[in-house]
């Protein structure tokens, strides 16, 4: 098995394979954000920021920050040529209305039915759902990108989520540092393994029963 860093790099690169040029994509904060820098040669996405614009560009050079141009994480950003700004009603009309081709989000838990929990841990963290519930319901494809297990070793790919859900049965694909799992009506099909990882190793870190790719 690769070391942790290499596996995370594999994860980010693997997510970046999921798009075609022109796709409208919303990337969550954290691991998903890194996908923008890992796109294959020639693939250009139109990134959406739920606070109100399309055409999210790279972070600005020092000294060129515009306080009115921040991403959904509140960090300075830029808008690429061809981008456009709008209000929150339009932003979520785009999201809820199915005009976002894919969203990539992290998860606290995800399960074999495609349920997702990523917005609160009762009694511990209650940051709020922000735009996540709309994104997960509205985006045409929902891709979860995360470390396969929690820092304390706890399982995250479950038979049934135990934390409060972000949305019910909306996840299409789970990409972790161990492999790629597709949510199907039969359950989770393991489509791909990270380099040097075996089916049995992934299954050992997964509560849900994985189905072997045929």
């Amino acid at each position, binding site marked *: 098995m690769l070391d942790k860093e290499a596996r995370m790099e594999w994860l980010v690169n693997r997510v970046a394979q999921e798009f075609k040029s022109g796709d409208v994509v919303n990337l969550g904060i954290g691991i998903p954000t890194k996908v923008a820098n890992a796109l294959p040669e020639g693939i250009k996405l139109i990134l959406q920021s*739920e606070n109100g614009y399309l055409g999210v560009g790279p972070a600005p050079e020092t000294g060129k920050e515009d306080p009115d141009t921040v991403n959904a994480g509140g960090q300075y950003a830029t808008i690429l040529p061809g981008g456009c*700004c*709008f209000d*929150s009603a339009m932003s*979520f009309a785009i999201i*809820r209305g199915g005009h976002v081709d894919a969203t990539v989000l992290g998860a606290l838990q995800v399960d074999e039915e495609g349920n997702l929990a990523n917005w609160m841990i009762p009694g511990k963290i209650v*940051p709020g759902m*922000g*735009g996540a519930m709309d994104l997960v319901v509205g985006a045409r494809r929902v891709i979860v990108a995360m470390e396969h297990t929690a820092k304390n070793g706890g399982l995250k790919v479950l038979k049934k989520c135990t934390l409060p859900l972000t949305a019910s049965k909306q996840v299409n694909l789970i990409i972790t540092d161990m492999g790629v799992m597709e949510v199907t009506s039969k359950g989770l099909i393991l489509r791909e393994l990270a380099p040097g990882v075996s089916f049995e190793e992934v299954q050992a870190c997964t509560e849900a029963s994985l189905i072997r790719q045929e």
Partner: protein
Amino acid sequence: MVQVVSLEEAISKVQNGMTIMVGGFIGCGAPDQLLDAVSQKGIKELTLIANDTGILGDAMSQLIVKRCVSKLIATHIGTNKETGRQMTEGELEVKLVPQGTLVEQIRAAGAGLGGILTPTGIGTIVEEGKQKFVANGTEYLLELPLGANVALLKAYKADKAGNLVYHRAARNFNPIMAMAVDFVIAQVDQIVEVGEIDPDEVMTPGIFIDYLVQKQPREVSDVG
């Protein structure tokens, strides 16, 4: 009719116990000087409707820190730890709402709609206590309109008829909140004469605006 007023005069419209809406997204597009004035004046028992409560230290966050707010309706509070603390301690009532739902609820109030049906929140705790509908095999929640007494907004430019223009991502909730309240106060960077903004450039029609407040240059002491 729109009036250009001082910060003090503007803030006299915000009183203890009111429900207020504040534009902005993690500080971007939030009317910092209006917010400073509200928190410095020590207004209390506000119900605050906003996307978030800012980043601890900024003008928005001070509404919470200075305990101006007794009830909060927001989508995200993770960038202001004090909000979470007050919530956990039972000092602040917090209702968390999905962002796309919050903006449609505000829009519904402004547009005279009795509510909207959204698929967001189905199968989650957001659906608790709400009416559900099924149409074409999809389940929806009925979400009701959400208005307020006063809105505190920020714009980049205004003419003296109150027409507003926003800049980049600072637009966010501002134009929607402008429609949904009894009284609108907008902090603007620049106030120009009537006729200097092209009709096609206007993002919020002046008829929604009551008070315009010219943003003041920062005092030298702030810079040093």
